[in-house]
């Protein structure tokens, strides 16, 4: 059964929940900012402000000045937290080594993730950052939120934390950086009971699931990524908050093979929307593209004159499987050869659309390069139906979670286990046969070591005869 919340999700109204007045939020002038001087000398940080891009140093200075001008009772941790952070960073630049100590037993009661302990190893010099813990907030699906929501989170973090945040972390969470241990539980209470938000994942947990904008705003989305992300986030709450895996585990949901959340590169289990029938072709719109009446790529490259649109040069000839051609003025596609590269659909969105029999491809084992280099996910299940409450998907998830925690070494990602034990073992766990549609990376199939019982009729081989001709 799909998840139903126990209490209704409220619409957050900033005016009812705000902590600061407008005067407090806008408490300095641009003139004052120009004259701002950090309490520590930070020449190298100031150098970073001079480049062409917006700098975190400029943001930190604004925040430091803002905190300087708030009254004492309007912040529950030290006002100098931002200035001390900048001061310590300058020391690290000078000495070429970090002064952060990472990790610890901090957390909120009952949760094994969501809080990452951090401490300064120069607490006497920089007392305001003696504790500098990170809290991860589970972002709303597709990172859709209102400015009221953001303002509520920002006020809470200004009041009980440093006011410094990352929008968003690589996994998708809203990252609040810098608070003291005694603020963790009150923040968690406010988030859960007032703002109805939850912490995200960290440590050996299921990490915060992430999805693309999906059907909410994208006509290419073959699956409802937001619904799927929401359902699986709730269904696997225990795995998200109470760590018992060998290492991190990530789900990501892409609505189509364009892969806007890059699930194929960043998640242990990637879900990518796809279709199993044919690309829908509107031949009139094809002609309109050829005739120049509709701009290719929805006008995305209109800033420069690239010449007249040439369907042969820009679409047909660059199809990776050469499965398109023109016949009697019509665009033809040999759909069984299509590898869902999305190029033709991206170039001519009004003429070509994904098919209507939609579902999901499931891939396993992507990871960042801590051990053995970065790995892409292995396309293992080419097509699966994908409807709420996703029982068939949950069945696959649980097969993986029977195997990997049992066989995986400490700090071994799923991709590394697949590499160590082989793709055949993965297929055995999933109870699916090897298929030519399984793809390791573009233009390469996984290597399958066949066992005699897997091959009809088996095989006869006299090992002694073989060895008489091949030295060991």
């Amino acid at each position: 059964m799909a998840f139903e919340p126990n209490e209704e999700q409220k619409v957050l109204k900033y005016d009812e929940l705000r902590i600061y007045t407008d005067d407090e939020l806008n408490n300095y002038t641009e003139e004052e900012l120009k004259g701002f001087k950090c309490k520590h000398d930070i020449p190298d940080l100031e150098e970073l402000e001079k480049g062409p891009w917006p700098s975190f140093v400029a943001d930190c200075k604004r925040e430091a000045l803002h905190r300087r001008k708030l009254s004492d009772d309007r912040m529950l941790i030290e006002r100098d937290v931002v200035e001390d952070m900048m001061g310590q960073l300058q020391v690290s630049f000078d000495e070429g080594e970090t002064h952060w100590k990472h990790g610890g037993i901090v957390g909120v009661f009952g949760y094994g993730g969501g809080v990452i302990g951090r401490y300064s190893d120069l607490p006497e010099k920089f007392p305001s950052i003696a504790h500098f813990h990170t809290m991860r907030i589970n972002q709303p699906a597709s990172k859709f939120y209102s400015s009221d929501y953001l303002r509520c989170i920002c006020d809470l973090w200004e009041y009980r934390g440093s006011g410094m945040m990352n929008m968003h972390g690589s996994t998708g969470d809203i990252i609040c950086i810098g608070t003291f241990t005694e603020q963790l539980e009150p923040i968690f209470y406010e988030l859960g009971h007032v703002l109805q938000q939850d912490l995200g994942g960290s440590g050996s947990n299921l990490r915060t699931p992430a999805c693309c904008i999906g059907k909410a705003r994208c006509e290419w989305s073959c699956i409802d990524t937001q619904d799927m992300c929401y359902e699986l986030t709730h269904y696997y709450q225990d795995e998200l908050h109470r760590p018992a895996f060998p290492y991190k585990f990530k789900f990501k949901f892409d609505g189509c093979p364009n892969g806007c959340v890059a699930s194929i590169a960043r998640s242990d289990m990637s879900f990518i929307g796809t279709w199993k029938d044919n690309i829908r072709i509107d031949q009139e719109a094809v002609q309109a593209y050829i005739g120049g009446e509709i701009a290719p790529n929805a006008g995305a490259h209109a800033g420069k004159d690239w010449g007249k649109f040439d369907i042969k040069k820009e679409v047909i000839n660059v199809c990776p499987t050469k499965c398109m051609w023109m016949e009697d003025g019509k665009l033809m596609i040999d759909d069984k050869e299509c590898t869902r590269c999305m190029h033709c659909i991206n170039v001519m969105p009004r003429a070509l659309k994904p098919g209507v029999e939609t579902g999901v491809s499931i891939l396993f084992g992507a990871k960042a390069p801590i051990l053995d280099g970065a790995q892409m996910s292995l396309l293992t299940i080419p097509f699966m139906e994908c409807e709420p409450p996703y029982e068939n998907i949950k069945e696959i998830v649980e097969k993986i979670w029977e195997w990997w925690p049992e066989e995986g070494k400490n700090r071994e990602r799923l991709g590394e286990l697949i590499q160590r034990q082989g793709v055949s073992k993965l297929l055995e766990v999933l109870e699916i046969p090897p298929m030519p549609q399984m793809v390791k990376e573009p233009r390469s199939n996984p290597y399958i070591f066949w066992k005699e019982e897997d091959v009809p009729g088996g095989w006869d081989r006299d090992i002694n005869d073989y060895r008489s001709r091949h030295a060991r």
Partner: protein
Amino acid sequence: MEDIKEAILAFAEKSKKSKFYFNDIQKAVQKVIPDAKARMIKKAATALINEEKLIYFSTGSSTMYGLKGRGQTEDH
């Protein structure tokens, strides 16, 4: 459940290390109670966390369990 909790605490008290991965807990429990399933062991470990007998220790990237009061017990 109670026997698994006891096995976890016995392992945590005997272990030379003050922090251990879940995998190590699981192996130790299954030595004593061979038919204990991972899910049950996790439930027992969670119960011990809630009873404040075990603690989580997280580096941010991976998580370990520890016996409360043993090894690093302060904030830092």
